[in-house]
């Protein structure tokens, strides 16, 4: 999940009887699967929680470009380089759709950037892991984008209109990302022994971080109930994680890769795999800024913002000059 822990505002889930008439009408519209649109009345907690969730998601798209950017200049062929460029460009676009969706709730894009750059806002823990070999590009596409799709498909039905519409666009584009990653893995495992080892090594390093993308276990997920009542969260973290494991294990088998989990076992009764929980201490450490690449990622992001300042200033100055001289500038 790209928004792993979102603090939910409000006083917990109220029963319809305990709500104010406005809150009740709002909840009944959500229960009837109607979309909430920007200018309509909404509880303050709904607005604030959504801003946190959507901006966290947007930041993840933005920072998510960085681990892959590392390999644009190192891609093994021109075709792979062009494909990777297209994928990274998509991520920028996804960030943009989401920032625009959040802006409709009354926060500006620069405010959200500021929250990211000052460390006030979170982004997905997964992007704080390094991408050490070309096989990591395969593992990232296959597992990270795979986990993202798992989370984003249900969010197309989320109650907030602009968020749901952004999700529809993103899901349409995301499937290319996962397939290109799996395709890289397919080629690696068909290659030399060294390439197969590289593919297995990438899988080993990304498996548990990918499982962490869905956020903490349901028993530790304190914010879920209100968000689910508001339909800004559709499935629980563990439901999605289980679905991801069940989908990915057969794909790993197809590739001839070994899932790095000795406890992995098919459970006939529940119709899914039993698997080891990821290391949650590591998860919280990475999320609070102590992962392998947190500093590097944030530094790259802040530099890009600061280095681009003269250009943003120039664009605005030029637009103002054109407007002043009576040209059709806007």
């Amino acid at each position, binding site marked *: 999940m790209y928004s792993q822990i979102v603090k939910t505002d409000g006083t917990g889930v109220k029963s319809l009887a305990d709500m104010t008439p406005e809150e009740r009408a709002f909840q009944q519209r959500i229960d009837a699967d109607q979309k909430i*649109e*920007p*200018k*309509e*009345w909404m509880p*303050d907690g709904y*607005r*604030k929680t959504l*801003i*946190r969730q959507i901006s966290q998601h947007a930041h993840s798209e933005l920072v998510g470009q960085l681990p892959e950017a590392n390999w644009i200049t190192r891609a093994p062929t021109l075709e792979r380089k062009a494909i990777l460029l*297209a994928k990274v*460009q*998509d991520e920028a*676009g996804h960030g*943009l*759709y989401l920032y*625009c*969706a959040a*802006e*409709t*709730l*009354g*926060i*500006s*894009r*620069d*405010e*959200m950037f*500021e*929250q990211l750059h000052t460390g*006030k806002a979170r982004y997905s823990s997964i992007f704080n892991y390094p991408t050490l070999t070309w096989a990591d590009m395969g593992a990232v596409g296959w597992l990270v984008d795979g986990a993202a799709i798992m989370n984003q498909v249900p969010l197309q039905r989320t109650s907030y209109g*602009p968020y749901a*519409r*952004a999700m529809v*666009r993103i899901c349409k*584009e995301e499937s290319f990302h996962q397939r290109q990653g799996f395709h890289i893995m397919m080629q690696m495992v068909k290659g030399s022994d060294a390439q197969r080892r590289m593919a297995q090594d990438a899988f080993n390093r990304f498996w548990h971080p990918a499982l962490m993308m869905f956020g903490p276990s349901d028993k530790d997920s304190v914010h879920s109930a209100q968000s689910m009542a508001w339909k800004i969260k559709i499935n629980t973290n563990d439901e999605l994680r289980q679905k991801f494991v069940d989908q990915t294990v057969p794909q790993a088998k197809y590739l001839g890769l070994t899932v790095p989990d000795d406890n992995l076992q098919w459970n006939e009764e529940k119709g899914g795999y039993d698997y080891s929980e990821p290391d949650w201490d590591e998860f919280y450490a990475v999320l609070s800024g102590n992962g392998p690449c947190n500093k590097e990622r944030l530094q790259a992001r802040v530099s890009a913002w600061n280095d681009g300042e003269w250009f*943003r*200033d120039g*664009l*605005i100055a*030029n*637009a103002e000059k*054109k407007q002043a001289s009576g040209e*059709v*500038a*806007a």
Partner: protein
Amino acid sequence: MSSGKTSSNTDVEGSENKEQRKQETPLWEIFIRGQHGLNHRHVGSLHAADAQMAINNARDVYTRRNEGVSIWAVKSTQIVASAPSDKEPLFDPANSKVYRHPTFFDIPEEVGHM
């Protein structure tokens, strides 16, 4: 997609540094006409300093997969929208006028296609 409002609400977290922030480039609403000659359709919004940049950005953001053959960009502040509170007076009267739909009229089968 947008309410056309780029200024921040004071009740939203993170607003405290408002004075230090520079002016943002304006928000534009983007409309794309697809391949098949249908109307331009709203696809989303983006920031751009001027009209030319809005078109260029729209091309990069919204037509990377052959989604369009024509782009309209309109400053968000120029959009006039109906108010959510006017929903009933504006749209409810249509509910009682079902005779505006062809299916309201039963035509005997022997008349054939009409």
